């Protein structure tokens, strides 16, 4: 099973950009948290809080079992909290009230670290032995907020177009490598009576996920660009951004080309996954976390994934980080929490961890067993990838405003100018 469940995704996408974007804007407060090298072990037990229960939490259960077997005198107590809007409040309250966990899952990873770091609630893990082993895109993201390492990104989520191999073969459609080829494929499927692209418009976030992935490929939004920084800080309006205008215009052109189901704005994400698995749609833009939902709809489905063919050549895979493992600044036993993270990053242990979660690796030279659907894009995750929110200047509020307006476009009542204007309005209230 892979990372986040569907209900946490909207929050994930919406909240994801807050810390990151403000960091780009230079609004970040400087933390006084000391960098932790090897903290002292002050007890035999640690508490680990996560939002991943059920099958999604299996990778942690296996890991804890292996850790306790390797170090019989130590215990890891895993607590699962609901991954909804109350999660951060509960964690914050516990840290502030002296009931801090020793380790917790920071939902949305480095992009959500800002409020925790600004309130001095996290330990800087910059001197941990696994830091130099992070793959470049993860290393950059890890330090993206304020240069500190506020957690361990334990896996990478990869996004692209899932495609129905049988339908592609039946209608003699080659994997699109450019935006033009994607539009041509859309026309072929539409003319054949097959809905070209599936999307769960009712849930909003799948639409925003696709458009944010498109924006990430705009040449003006390369990581570290000045426009993204200006957009995030409010010194430039989204309506004056050629990158955003082109991205939303191109998304609108897909809608106008009838690439989506005419009722897409009323279809939920789980239904869209089932529709795709049952051959009602030919392509489905999603992250690898959608595989369980797709497989559940049709276990024998022959599915592959190709990168979003938009501005990049060759098209890069979109990567994102659902969470990172962080040690609170007031953890009762930070030394043992560090030992646990070091154990996780041991090559053989990490390999098992990735295989249990069917996840992409965040460490150099280690990989687990992936779902066959991901084999095509696996090499590109380390060699040709672009981070979802790296440079397009989205903030939590502007991402939410964009999401609503994009669904309006999908429903036939929105426009590029209305979307950009709504994003400007949300930014003005920052």
């Amino acid at each position, binding site marked *: 099973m892979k990372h986040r469940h569907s209900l946490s995704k909207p929050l994930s996408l919406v909240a994801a950009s807050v810390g990151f974007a403000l960091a780009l804007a230079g609004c970040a407060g400087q933390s006084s948290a000391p960098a932790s090298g090897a903290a002292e072990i002050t007890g035999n037990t640690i508490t680990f809080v996560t939002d991943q229960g059920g099958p999604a939490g299996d990778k942690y259960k296996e890991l804890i079992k292996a850790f306790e077997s390797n170090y019989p005198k130590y215990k890891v107590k895993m607590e699962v909290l609901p991954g909804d809007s109350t999660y951060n*409040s509960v964690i914050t309250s516990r840290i502030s009230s002296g009931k801090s966990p020793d380790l917790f899952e920071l939902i949305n990873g480095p992009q959500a670290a800002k409020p925790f770091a600004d309130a001095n*609630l996290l330990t800087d893990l910059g001197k941990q032995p696994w830091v130099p082993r992070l793959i470049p895109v993860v290393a950059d993201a890890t330090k993206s907020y304020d240069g500190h390492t506020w957690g361990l990104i334990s896996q990478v989520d990869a996004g692209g177009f899932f495609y129905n191999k049988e339908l592609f073969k039946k209608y003699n459609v080659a994997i699109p490598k450019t935006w033009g080829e994607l539009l041509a494929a859309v026309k072929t499927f539409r003319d054949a009576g097959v809905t070209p692209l599936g999307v769960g418009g009712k849930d909003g976030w799948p639409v925003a996920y696709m458009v944010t992935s498109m924006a990430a490929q705009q040449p003006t939004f390369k990581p570290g660009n000045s426009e993204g920084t200006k957009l995030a800080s409010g010194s430039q309006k989204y309506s004056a951004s050629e990158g955003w205008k082109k991205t939303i215009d191109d998304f609108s052109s897909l809608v106008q080309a009838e690439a989506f189901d005419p*009722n897409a704005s009323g279809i939920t994400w789980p239904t869209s996954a089932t529709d795709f698995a049952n051959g009602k749609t030919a392509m489905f833009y999603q992250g690898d976390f959608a595989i369980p939902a797709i497989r559940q709809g049709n276990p024998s489905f022959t599915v592959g994934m190709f990168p979003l063919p938009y501005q990049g050549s060759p098209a890069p895979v979109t990567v994102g980080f659902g969470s990172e493992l962080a040690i609170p600044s007031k953890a009762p036993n930070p030394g043992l929490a560090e030992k646990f993270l070091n154990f996780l990053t041991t090559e053989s242990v990490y390999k098992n961890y990735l295989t249990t979660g069917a996840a992409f690796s965040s460490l150099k030279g280690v990989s687990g067993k992936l779902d066959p659907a991901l084999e095509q894009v696996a090499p590109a995750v380390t060699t040709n990838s672009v981070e979802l929110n790296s440079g397009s200047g989205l903030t939590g509020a502007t991402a939410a405003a964009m999401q609503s307006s994009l669904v309006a476009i999908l*429903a036939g009542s929105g426009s590029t100018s209305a979307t950009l204007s*709504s994003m400007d309005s*949300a930014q003005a*209230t920052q």
Partner: protein
Amino acid sequence: MTTLSTLPSPRRRKRNLVNLLFILPAAIVFGVVVLLPIVENLFYSFTNWTGFGNSFSFIGIQNFGRLLQDTQTLTAFRNTVVFTLINSPLQIALGLLLALTLRKPGRFSSALRTVIVLPIAVSGVVLGFLGAVIFDPNSGILKAVSTLPGLGLLGANWLGDPRLAMSSVIAMNLWQWTGFTMLIFLAGLSTIPPELYEVARLDGAGPWAQFRAITWPLLAPAATINIVLTMIGGLKVFDIMYVLTQGGPGDATQSIVMRVTAEGSFARFGYAAAIDFVLTAVILVVSIFALVLLRRRELDA
């Protein structure tokens, strides 16, 4: 002017003290659970608190100024008012109609009353699931029914079309809460002495005349409660919109409470508190206005 005769006697003073002691527990609970959060909310609405840690700065009325520029929040206010103005009269009219129809005791009316009241017990999650089963544009119940002759219109994209989404939400809300309105009217109807109707009939009054002269005036207290409750419920609407549409498509069904929770999740608790305080003030003004106006009508009745 205070005279010896108007001063409270020791006995009366003791009785007042006993009364006060009886009120005190409820007053403490009310103060802690209702008043304190309102005051705290007002306090944070003048700050830039993120909701993390204890550090924040006072920023005056900036959050309230922002609110006026925020198109999403203004849209949410408009949606909430539209929802309230359409839902409240419909819920009251339907509740009254059902109460009048089912007021007479009997097995059938008793069973029907139970069926109508049952949705009140349905949780928001179940409601969302039911909504999906009913309204799914490709595989919902309405879509299936729309294949029957003459019912094609039912196959619309009920939750995904901005022109229809609000009416779908209102329909589900009416389904869930009309039973509650009916119950209050039934309680009101049970207090009307049957003799009044007998006298009216002897005087030759028909059903409509009886309703106008007896039922409606004497139902005034029940109507007051229903009007105030449906308006407050409408202005605070959240769960039904969240589970059915998540505020979409676009912002077509985004309510003001949804905006508050969204802003909170963006680590903008100060701004969220400001929006919430404005909502609280609106509810307070509307409630007081409605109560004063309707109490006057009750007295006239």
